[in-house]
Every structure is written in structure tokens, then in C-alpha cells.
């Protein structure tokens, strides 16, 4: 990899997965000292990258039962022995951390609706006989009311960004009809949404989904056409910043076996202005 690459916009030698990792890392930049939980390969790399660079105060686990002084590489390891452990962090301690609010999770919901409510439980109209049973609500209800959450979407589509409400609402969002007594929207903290097309957040009018930046080569219409509800589009929509050479180096150290190249279908290039017609279309696999 000795090709000459310069920083930022001139750097074309990176994958879409790497672009998404770098931009997802930004979600953790101003978090201070909280547990950064990236669920899945790319979000975990994003949290790890944030901790290795601009927010060293973050806390991170070994994805099993210990808090680490610095993140483990996600690939190329054969055991947990010798890892830089800080304290025990089994599941019951995770709950203590969740309930304290000192955590920011980046999760991959199967469905997200206009209110920022999500679903990983079950698909279909009838909850009692689901069309497709998924994992179950896991910790989503508690996470969503206790601490900030960001969403990572490997394949931006209307199957994920659904019309109406999620089939099973597993996490609280900005839905006035469901707001509990004594709560305001200020008590709910949904942060960034990183997809294979763009970055969004919930700072549109009335906490609606707002377009923040478009990944290189993506048109606004692609985002709108693949979202099942309205997206607020500001006057100015910048291009998502490309990963720097330094970031790409650290990502490579965190994932020496390049598992990230398998996280998105066809492992598309990050700079799609530079892509030629042989690059397959952008739809990637649905990760549950």
C-alpha cells in the first residue's frame, strides 16, 4: 500500500466501509468519559477509532466481560489473554453502566421509523404470529431511555427506514403519542444515523430525521427515494469527509485481517465519484 495518498478530499484509496467507520467515529467525538459500545464489526471499529484518536477518554470493552485500557483489534487475535484489562464488565455491570447514562451505543436496527423508534424484535403486522422473528428486543428499550444511541445502517432502504411505525417498537423515540408522563423530548437522546449513502441526525423540525452529509457520489434523491418517510434537507448539504491517511492506518491496525472488507456487499469504493461503471450498485446485505 505504498500508493501516494494525500489527506482528505484527494485521498481516493479507501472503501465505503472505511468511510463509514471514520464518519461513524465522529459520533463519539464529544462524548467524554462514557462506555462506547459499537455493536457489529463496523460500529465497533468506529468506537475503537474514536478512542484511538480524538476521544481517548472513552471506555471500551473486549465484547465479552472486561473493560479495556485500549481497544482490542477486532481481527488477528487468537485469545483474550494479555489484553489491557481495566475492570470486570460482565453483563450485569453493563446494565449498571446503561442505567447510569454513561454509555453511547451504536446499534444496527432492522427497522427505523420517522420518530427514531427502532425494531430488532420481529417483523410483520401480527406480533403474536410474526412473519419473521428476529432477535427479540434485547437491551434496546432500556438503552433508548437511559443513554444516547446512534444507528448504523449498512443498506439504506425503505425496508429499514419504514413508513409509519416500526412493526414492533423496541426503543423509545421522538413520538408524542408515546411520550411517558413527566417526560419531554429532551429526555431522549438519539444521535447520528450513518448509512451507506449518507449521515443524518434527528435535528430536523420537531426532531425529524435531517440529512447532515452525503457520501461522495450519492445524490439527495437516492436518500429520499430509499427512505420510507420525509427527510429534512437543509439548504447546504456537504459531502461526508473522507477518512484521513492516519485514520486508515489505525483502522488497519484495528482490523489487520480486513474483516471490514466483508461487512458490505461487494465492498464498494468509498469515493464513488472516482468509481467506474463496473462497480456494482450499492445495495448491501441486511445485517440483523
Amino acid at each position, binding site marked *: 500500500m505504498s500508493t501516494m495518498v494525500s489527506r482528505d478530499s484527494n485521498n481516493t484509496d479507501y472503501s465505503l466501509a472505511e468511510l463509514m467507520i471514520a464518519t461513524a467515529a465522529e459520533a463519539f467525538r464529544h462524548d467524554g468519559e462514557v462506555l462506547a459500545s459499537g455493536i457489529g464489526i463496523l460500529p465497533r471499529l468506529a468506537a475503537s477509532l474514536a478512542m484511538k484518536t480524538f476521544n481517548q477518554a472513552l471506555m471500551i470493552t*473486549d*465484547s*465479552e*466481560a*472486561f473493560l479495556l485500557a485500549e481497544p482490542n483489534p477486532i481481527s488477528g*487475535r*487468537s*485469545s*483474550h489473554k494479555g489484553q489491557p484489562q481495566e475492570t470486570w464488565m*460482565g*453483563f*450485569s455491570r453493563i*446494565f449498571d453502566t*446503561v*442505567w447510569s447514562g454513561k454509555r453511547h451505543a451504536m446499534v444496527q436496527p432492522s427497522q427505523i421509523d420517522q420518530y427514531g*423508534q427502532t425494531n430488532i*424484535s*420481529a417483523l410483520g403486522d*401480527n*406480533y*403474536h*404470529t*410474526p*412473519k*419473521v*422473528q*428476529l*432477535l*427479540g*428486543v*434485547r*437491551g*434496546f*428499550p*432500556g438503552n*433508548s*431511555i*437511559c443513554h444516547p444511541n446512534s444507528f448504523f445502517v449498512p443498506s439504506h432502504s425503505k425496508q429499514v427506514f419504514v413508513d409509519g411505525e416500526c412493526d*414492533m*417498537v*423496541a*426503543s*423509545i*423515540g421522538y*413520538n408524542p403519542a*408515546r*411520550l*411517558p*408522563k*413527566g*417526560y419531554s423530548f429532551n429526555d431522549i437522546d438519539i444521535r447520528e444515523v450513518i448509512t451507506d449513502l449518507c449521515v443524518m441526525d434527528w435535528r430536523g423540525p420537531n426532531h425529524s430525521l435531517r440529512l447532515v452529509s452525503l457520501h461522495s457520489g450519492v445524490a439527495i434523491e437516492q436518500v429520499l427515494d430509499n427512505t420510507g418517510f420525509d427527510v429534512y434537507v437543509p439548504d447546504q448539504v456537504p459531502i461526508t469527509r473522507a477518512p484521513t491517511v492516519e485514520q486508515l492506518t489505525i483502522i488497519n491496525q484495528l482490523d489487520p485481517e480486513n474483516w471490514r472488507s466483508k461487512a458490505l456487499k461487494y465492498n464498494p469504493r468509498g469515493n464513488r465519484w472516482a468509481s467506474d461503471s463496473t462497480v456494482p450498485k450499492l445495495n448491501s446485505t441486511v445485517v*440483523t
Partner: protein
Amino acid sequence: MICARTFKAIDILKQEEFYMSKVLSAKNAVARIEDGMTLGIGGWGPRRKPMALVRELLRSQCKDLTIVAYGGADVGMLCAAGKVKKLIFAFVSLDFIPLEPYFRQARQNGTLDVMEIDEGMMLLGLRAAAWKIPYIPTSLGLGTDVIKYNPTIKVIDSPYDDKAWVAMPALKLDVSILHVDRADARGVCQIKSPDIYMDDWFARAADTTIVSCDELVGSAFFSQNDEARSVFWERAQTSSVVPIAGGAHPTSCAPGYGFDVSHLKIYNASVKEGGFSAYFEKYIATKTEQEYQQAVGGLEAILKLPLPVY
């Protein structure tokens, strides 16, 4: 000094004749689980599940159970065998195979009564039962369908503020089944795995707690070094001890052995190749636990299964 070698149950009984022995066979222990009971199962997904006890339960006539678990193949198998009337769960997953095949089948067929709750709500429910209080107030579940689909879980006012609170009810268990690394005949149980999951709360929330262990040791074992620090509940919370080396298979019992990836793949594939009855006939139905272990490669191979790297 007593070292960590495995004792035969009979040696332990002689050594500790002044104490009661809680050692039972799997069959006799599982016989305490009756039709219609609420059964808690320890472990998490594919990790440290009391699978030998689950297999014994599958061989029994017991039915109409309400299961409380952080579920994996334990829940899938019991659902597939028609043992489960109601499932109290936050997820059912085999981790590297995210969606448990038979749990999924049971849900999609609509044959299961469910109480689907947040993982933390389950912990609070177990704690409430252990502490003999009717509920624990929490914000978990507010604003979600967990409240909508569980009308028995009440949202209440607080005497101290003006907010809504979920009153997570006690999840009182008739019986819990757990698997640990080591136990003595009096019911002192040791977990050496990196995570104990909620096993301590499953033990405390149940009237009867049946614990299978990889190794039965003499009581003096726990007085060595810091061994007693890895004991997370008092023996009064343990009703029966069932020594079964490899008893968590095909789930893991770290640091001893990892989960059996290839066997879990066979199990997962069985849903499309003959269904659970074929799996049950091949591995469980008329087999003893020893025969089961031989059918999956032998105890020696189980104890060598590599630990997962996360």
C-alpha cells in the same frame, strides 16, 4: 491439600458425612420439575447453559413450562419439543448464528405465549423475586411496545416525583437450572468464566436450584488461594448438585471449553433437514449423557473445544 482433580461422588460423600449431600443424578434432579412450573435457565445465548439438564428434561414427560432465560439452544430445544407454554425472554440467539432456528419457528407458528422484555427488566424481575418484593420501579420499557404487549406489566405513579415508572414484577421461579465449573456436595458453586451472567439471581429467585457442574470437588478446594472469590451465592441457594463433566455442551464453559461451532451448525441445519424430531432421535431420545457425548465426538474432544475470541 485437596487439588482440583475430579472426585467420585462417593468419595465426597464419605469425606463429608457430617454434612448433607445434595448430589443427585440428572434424572432424579430434573424430576423435581413438574408440569406447569416456572423454570429459570442460567447462562447467556450459547454460553454456559445447563444443557445436560435440558436434555434430561427433554427426555422427561414434563410439559406446560413457563421458561425465563437469556435464551439460546436451551430455549430453542424446549420450544421445539413442545415443553413450553410461555416464554419470558429478551432475546434468543446462538450469537454467531444470530437467529435461533426453533425459537423462530415456534414464534412464527404462533404457538408460544410470550412476555418479551428488556434484558435489564429480566434482571430486575429476578432481583425482585430474590428480595421478596412485588416489583422494582424502572424507566426501562417506557414508550415501547414492551409495555403495550405486556398488559400485566403496570406503569405506575411515583410517590416521589411526577414521572411514569414501569413496575417490573418479580419473576418468581419454581426451579432454576444452572451449569457451573465446580461445586462441592454441599452446594458451594464456583464459576470461573469471565462472566457469571445472571446465574446468581436465577439461583436466588428460585425455590429450587439445580446446578450441574463440570467438576465435583471437596469442600477444602474453596479454601485455597482466592478460590472462594469465584463463589457468587451461598450454598443455601443450591438445592441439588449434578456432576456432569462437559455438561454445558454444545454451549461453552469458559475457561474450560468453548461452544461447539460445528455441532451448533448441525443443530441449526436440522430445522430444514428432518426437524427437531430427527435431531432429538439422533442425539438425545434414548441416549444417556455418555452416549450423547460419544455421538458428538467424546468428552475429551468437548473439553478441548477452543474458547471463542470476541
